[in-house]
């Protein structure tokens, strides 16, 4: 009996350990595969070509700068919309809304997160883009900003869900202390509750942005996919081509092992590194703020 229990215990601990490590193993394997398929690009394409401003692979123009700037501007636009909107919604649900509203609102927001991005893309192409074109008098409604709005809609549910959980775990005594010294409701939220929940809110934002930068389908449908350098302020309201859309659109028909194929994987490496940088930056911010709060509390 006892022996049997030990044996089971052994298996279960090992199984849990294995599943924990498997996440690392899979990421490592994926990264190795990306490197293997993508790095040959550096030998096949001149660096001056690779970092030029023209992407037209069927004529051997492999400049990836337009794609990088395209991804960045679309994601930046999405962050500008999603962060205030997401945090605002989280604060409303957690701090202001009456209980009944809150019970309805939170599941609804999370439901929005389950919406397939293709559906959002269709809404974008049929409703949002014509509306943007006529409202802002743009040449076309298929712009980076259209993509940003859709990405914001994809990122907001994640941000709201995680940030609201974090706000919810801030002890009630913090708020009561703030009210006791005469702080208004808004002052309490802005100066006490939000800073106390900071690391959870940051995690929510990073997860949301992470979803946005990797999103493909909706973006491919509405940004127009023109590989222009998106570096002027007005570029947000012009078409742009993202890295994800490029990979998705071109991978299907590219000859395996060709220069174009390797370059698409190289774009994958760049995308991976950008996501990694965002994650590292986010965790360092969270780590630092945690240390400070530990210092204060000790």
């Amino acid at each position, binding site marked *: 009996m006892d022996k049997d229990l030990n044996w089971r215990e052994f298996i279960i601990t090992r199984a849990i350990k294995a599943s924990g490590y498997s996440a690392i193993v899979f990421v490592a394997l994926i990264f190795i595969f990306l490197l293997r398929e993508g790095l040959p690009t550096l030998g096949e394409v001149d660096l001056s070509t690779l970092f030029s401003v023209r992407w037209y*692979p069927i004529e051997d123009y492999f400049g990836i700068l*337009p794609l990088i700037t395209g991804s960045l501007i679309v994601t930046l636009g999405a962050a500008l919309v999603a962060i205030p909107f997401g945090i605002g919604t989280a604060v409303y649900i957690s701090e202001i809304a009456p209980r009944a509203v809150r019970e309805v609102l939170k599941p609804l927001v999370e439901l929005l997160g389950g919406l397939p991005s293709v559906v959002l893309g269709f809404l974008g192409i049929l409703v949002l883009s014509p509306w943007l074109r006529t409202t802002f008098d743009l040449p*076309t409604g*298929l712009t980076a900003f259209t993509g940003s709005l859709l990405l914001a809609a994809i990122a907001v549910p994640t941000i709201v869900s995680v940030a609201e959980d974090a706000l919810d775990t801030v002890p009630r005594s913090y708020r009561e202390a703030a009210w006791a010294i005469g702080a208004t409701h808004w002052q309490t939220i802005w100066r006490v509750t939000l800073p106390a929940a900071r690391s959870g809110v940051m995690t929510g934002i990073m997860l949301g942005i992470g979803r946005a930068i990797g999103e493909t389908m909706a973006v491919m449908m509405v940004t127009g*996919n*023109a590989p222009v350098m998106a570096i002027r302020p007005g570029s947000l309201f012009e078409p742009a081509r993202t890295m994800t859309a490029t990979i998705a*659109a071109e991978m299907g*028909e590219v000859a395996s092992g060709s220069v174009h194929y390797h370059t698409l994987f190289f774009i994958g490496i760049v995308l991976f590194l950008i996501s990694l940088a965002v994650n590292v930056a986010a965790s360092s911010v969270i780590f630092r703020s945690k240390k400070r709060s530990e210092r204060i509390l000790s």
Partner: protein
Amino acid sequence: MKKRPLLTGLLLALVVVCVSCSSPDPSEQTLENKGSDTIVNLALAWAEFYQLEYPDVRISVTGGGSGTGIAALINDTVDIANASRQIKIEEIEKAQSNGIDPIEFVIARDAIAVIVNPENPVSELTLQQISDIYSGKITNWNQVGGDDRPIVRLSRETNSGTHVYFLENVLRLGDKKSKTLFSRNTLLLPSSEGIIVEVRQNPNAIGYDGLGYVPSDLKMIGIAVEAGGEYVLPSIETVNDATYPIARDLYMYTAGEPTGIVKIYLEWIITSDEAQGIVGDLGFVPIK
């Protein structure tokens, strides 16, 4: 290549497979047909129709692109390869070194229509003007007799055979040495449907698409080869009398002179009224 037809194509393929697998007949003849995504719907419609008339013939049709089909022909894994472009010299050489002599059949034609929003007063352009619009030399509709509006250029993605055809025959006007490229701010849309949706709602837009895919609420542009020439709208007649300048042949290739069922099937496709009727129904241009 064209997203929605591809889906219906896949469904049809499923139907074809199911119809044929239900009757395991020893006298059954099989035929492998593979290649261009432009042609895949047409090939499936033919295969389906033919198998209804001759249940002892089993035809399997797959897409994958013209290059894929020709590669399969060179490796001798298909009986018929579909291609929306002519076979390249390198491909012929490769086939011959494998002991295969590809034979070409023109099975239908495809016109590429240039489309604009019905609100746009421009209805006629020369090939040179279309080339200048897409290469970025002309940027406003008033330069070609329209309103003062910016031109929004729409194109298919670069992996589309239609994109390549348009680049070589319209943008570069058939000049093999020309290095003209699409203007960088040309919108590259992933499907025919994407182009049609945008042209329908945007009076600034210009796009191109296979004749069969253009809905009646969009305006097709009459095209002249040279300034002062006659402006011609795309239709079955103008493609067949060669007055409409942007039309291409669609091909099937066999390994050597076809024999047996392959020969019978190809003859049916090229000469029968039913087969060429299907061509018209699907929006391509029949060859007879």
